[in-house]
């Protein structure tokens, strides 16, 4: 099977699964929604981490920014946000269905845009850092933003902010959010995949392999790097907006900026599946989420132990991830071969 056909059939299978699961097992809808969120996180993280070699520990910042941006828009459409939050929930928000839907979609868009703008502003600074300094710098950024937001009265500070309640019937809410996250996940993957096929993809790969060389060859490294960070930011921002609505209640450190959980999970997932590959992060996210949910159910109280052990085993014994390992085993499947039709004479002639 050619790589292109393979890709198409995987998309087909994913979309089919995405449509069938909520139909066949509606009880799993919200878990599946989180699964798609994980896929989105891993795939977009891999854009900078795997493809560009800039391992960010701070992509979760975009998630939180998107979430808060949408909250402010959605609530701000109808109420004064400061009044709403300072009342500690003494104001009950009531939205008409129209207001809710407008707010939701405006909020999602605004969340994505704000996160992107944020990436554009801090990008040139953060992306000047290299290697572990970038990782730690972005982690620092995530923690700093989270702490600032949790000290910011306007958006409720540490007591968080309650989102408008979904107007529809029970169950339809999770379905709507499921569909949104599902669509975003597939869309983000399509975008990442398409972008990687262009000059842009080659350029960020070049930056990953040797940034000094890329600079010396005249590549606009900063421009590429910042754009390559804005793309994940856009999707993470929108995903954050959706997830905030799905959660119903936004709490700064745990829901909006969960650095120690989602923030690290997205890296773990990409590594598990194989970073720097098209499908690795997707595979990693799916496996990780399944393992996580199963251990959460069956190893109550020990789930974190299991998770820690899995991460260690993964890293120690499976360093390139599952797809990386497969790529080593069957390079032909990944289009990594010498063109066999060539004869040896081509070489000799050229050298004459």
């Amino acid at each position, binding site marked *: 099977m050619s790589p292109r056909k393979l890709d198409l059939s995987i998309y087909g299978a994913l979309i089919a699964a995405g449509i069938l699961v909520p139909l066949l097992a509606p009880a799993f809808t919200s878990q599946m929604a989180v699964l798609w969120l994980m896929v989105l996180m891993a795939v977009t993280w891999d854009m900078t981490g795997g493809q560009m070699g800039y391992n960010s520990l701070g992509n979760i910042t975009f998630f939180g920014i998107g979430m808060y941006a949408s909250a402010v828009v959605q609530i701000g459409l109808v109420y004064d946000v400061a009044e709403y939050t300072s009342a500690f929930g003494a104001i009950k928000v009531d939205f008409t269905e129209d207001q809710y839907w407008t707010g939701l979609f405006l909020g999602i868009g605004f969340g994505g845009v704000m996160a992107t703008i944020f990436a554009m502003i801090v990008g040139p600074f953060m992306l000047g850092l290299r290697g572990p300094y970038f990782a730690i710098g972005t982690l620092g950024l995530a923690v700093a933003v989270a702490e600032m937001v949790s000290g910011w009265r306007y958006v409720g500070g540490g007591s968080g902010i309650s989102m408008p309640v979904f107007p529809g019937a029970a169950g339809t809410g999770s379905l709507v959010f499921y569909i949104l996250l599902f669509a975003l996940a597939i869309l983000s993957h399509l975008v990442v995949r398409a972008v990687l096929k262009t000059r842009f993809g080659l350029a960020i790969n070049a930056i990953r392999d040797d940034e000094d060389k890329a600079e010396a060859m005249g590549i606009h490294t900063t421009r590429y790097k910042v754009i390559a960070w804005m793309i994940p930011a856009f999707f993470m921002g929108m995903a954050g907006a959706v997830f905030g609505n799905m959660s119903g209640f936004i709490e700064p450190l745990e829901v909006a900026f969960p650095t120690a959980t989602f923030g690290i999970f997205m890296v773990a997932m990409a590594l598990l599946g194989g970073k720097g590959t098209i499908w690795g992060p997707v595979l990693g996210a799916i496996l990780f989420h399944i393992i996580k949910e199963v251990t959460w159910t069956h190893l109550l109280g020990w789930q974190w132990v299991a998770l820690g052990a899995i991460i260690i085993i993964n890293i120690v014994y499976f360093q390139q991830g599952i797809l990386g390992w497969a790529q080593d085993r069957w390079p032909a499947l990944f289009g990594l071969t010498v063109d066999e039709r060539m004869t*040896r004479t081509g*070489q*000799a002639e*050229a*050298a*004459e």
Partner: protein
Amino acid sequence: MSDNEHEVSVTVSEARISGYGSGGVETVISVEEVVKQVEAIADGPDQARIDALAGPDPYLSIEHLKAGYGKMQILHDFSLKVGKGQSCCLIGPNGAGKSTVLHSIFGFTNIFSGKVDVGGQDVTHYSSNEKLKNAGIAYILQDKSVFGGMTVEENLWMGGYLKETTAEAKEAAEKIFEKYPRLAARRNHQAKVLSGGERRLLEISRALVMEPEVLLVDEPSIGLEPRFIDMVFEILDDLQRVEGKTILMVEQNAKKGLEFADIGYVLVSGQTAMAGTGEELLANPEVGRLFLGG
């Protein structure tokens, strides 16, 4: 331009210019082509020839070695013998496995089968500190390996890391300083400020602290200016002729290497294609055409 060139190479410079010297550049062959052509003329020296070259008193011997990195095998059934106090030079195209031979002797590769013997001891599975301590093998790496953040003196002390006491190591270092005043002058400087040649000198003398019997030297002249190249070869010469060390070296500057060495091996694709005395190989027109750049 090109006829003038020929003249330069043969008449003027050959005699005078040290270092890489000069020579014609007409022969243009690709690596694959070299490999192919060498395979055609290869005599695949038999055991008798190898024994004969090493003389009556072989000190370092490698027998039927199969080794490589990870699962990948680089050396295929490689054999070599060097007599006591002899020097041997390995030449061959890039990627032939020359460094890998040295790596294998010192234990930086995976050895699948075969045997390495030094001074009558089977050292195949010695750890690297046993190699240095018990078998007296010292290794000078291909690329820069001084400890830049330490002083010249400390670098030499590190050379004596395996000595019983620190005092002994310091004593040995003093002997080295006596011998190379050029280093003594810079003993309290950090190694990273040394020039390329001085570094190479430090690397070589550091390997001498443990008074090894066998020296493994990888490309002593890489990146050096012409005069330093001569200096390095003089040092090696001194070690071999005066102190009676056994030297196995790899050299891309094949002409220099073969001029220096008693015996030479031509390595191609992890196998020995030819073996002979240094002069024999130098005189061989095919070797000249394929490895000395015409």
